[in-house]
């Protein structure tokens, strides 16, 4: 095997982080996307802008704020300490929290677009058939928005795999806990171990291409609907 043991550990950690983040965002992001798609509130604009912030903010800004907020004197840090969880930086769950923020728009926006694409009519039709709001959501909206969920899931997963700046700032580079593949590559480059950097980078390149290929192959099929 030409990847080292620590490389495999970093890849495994990266995949775990991306999977957990994507699953959490399905649960957290869907209600937000639904609200943004259906609401006529004047808060739609501001909330939509907040959701899109991580697209624009440099990871260094997000990482810096998270490091301070999750520290012992920050609001999040005080909350986690009161709850007996301890401090989040340098832990796997700290990375999960950071990734959830960082990848939030990648989940919400495609799902929101899919919900908006359904329009009012199918939902109104279901309502005339006496479907409850919950029933309308689960039996009508969710299945119709499925392509949007697939896109959102793939994008969120891939974006978390590609995360670097935020992890670098709050991770502490602990093997098996916070040293993800992108950080491992950075270490190799910095330490002049270009051979190792090349091998792991190639794996990331091929992986990213395959993920995006899956996304683009899936998408035309969704549009034919």
């Amino acid at each position: 095997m030409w990847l080292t043991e620590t490389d495999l550990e970093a890849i495994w950690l990266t995949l775990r982080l991306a999977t957990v983040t994507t699953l959490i965002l399905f649960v957290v992001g869907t209600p937000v996307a639904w609200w943004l798609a259906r609401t006529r509130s004047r808060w739609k604009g501001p909330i939509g802008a907040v959701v899109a912030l991580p697209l624009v903010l440099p990871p260094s800004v997000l990482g810096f704020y998270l490091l301070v907020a999750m520290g012992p004197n920050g609001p999040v840090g005080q909350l986690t300490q009161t709850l007996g969880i301890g401090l989040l930086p340098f832990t796997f769950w700290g990375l999960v929290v950071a990734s959830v923020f960082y990848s939030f728009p990648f989940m919400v926006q495609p799902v929101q677009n899919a919900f908006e694409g359904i329009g009012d009519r199918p939902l109104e039709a279901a309502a005339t058939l006496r479907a409850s709001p919950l029933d309308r959501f689960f039996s009508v909206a969710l299945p119709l928005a499925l392509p949007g969920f697939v896109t959102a899931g793939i994008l969120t997963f891939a974006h978390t795999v590609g995360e670097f700046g935020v992890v670098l700032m709050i991770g502490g580079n602990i093997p098996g806990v916070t040293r993800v593949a992108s950080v491992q590559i950075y270490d190799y480059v910095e330490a002049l171990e270009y051979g190792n950097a090349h091998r792991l980078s190639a794996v990331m390149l091929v992986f990213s291409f395959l993920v995006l290929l899956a996304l683009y192959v899936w998408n035309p099929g969704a549009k034919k609907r």
Partner: protein
Amino acid sequence: MQPIRPVLIAASLLASGSLSAAEVQIAVAGNFTAPMKAIIASFEQDSGHTVKASYGSTGKLYAQIKNGAPFEALLAADQERPQLLEEQGLGVPGSRYTYSIGALVLWSTDANKVEDGAALLKSGDFNKLSIANPKLAPYGDASIETLDSLGLKADVEPKLVMGENIAQAYQFVDTGNADIGFVALSQVMEGGKLIKGSGWIVPGEMHAPISQDALILNRGKDNPAVTELFVYLKGEKAEAIIHDFGYETE
């Protein structure tokens, strides 16, 4: 005729300007940022030259220089990288010298936390110990060597968190996420005393000296201002600044 005059004036200004004042573009290791800024300000005032400095980790600067970055000199955080550049023919032979020797300090933002550093490390009375990545940063290397000398490396290992450079090792402690950390004395010292918190300066015999070398690169070969800067760096004024920030010189 009208439009020609301003052009001529501008041209003559530019020409006369380039005779006396030149520009120097240098790469500087992150740990030396604060003293270098002070030295540059002083050098610019005394010489009339302009210095453009890029600060970063030595590994990154090395990679950039190897790939054609327009730096005329490198002030590294170690001896290895400047030596490699010199051997590869990317530097001016014989220009390499040790411009500073760093000191390591075990530091906490809590004014009462660190008294006897060795005893504190032994007691385990801290949540995390922040260090610079020993693979990348000489200060990280020295931190591990210190733990080795104390015979505590295995005990402390589960509590280690690593910054990619010494600035980040400092950041982890400064934000309170790690109780203590090994940082560069230059980061927590100004005018000969600690800026805040408490610290234990690691005795020099506990780790190999953190010697930092500077090298004139090929691009700076024909720029007399670069040579002037190096002479200035070895001079009294610069040396005083370097000492002020907690570094030794040879």
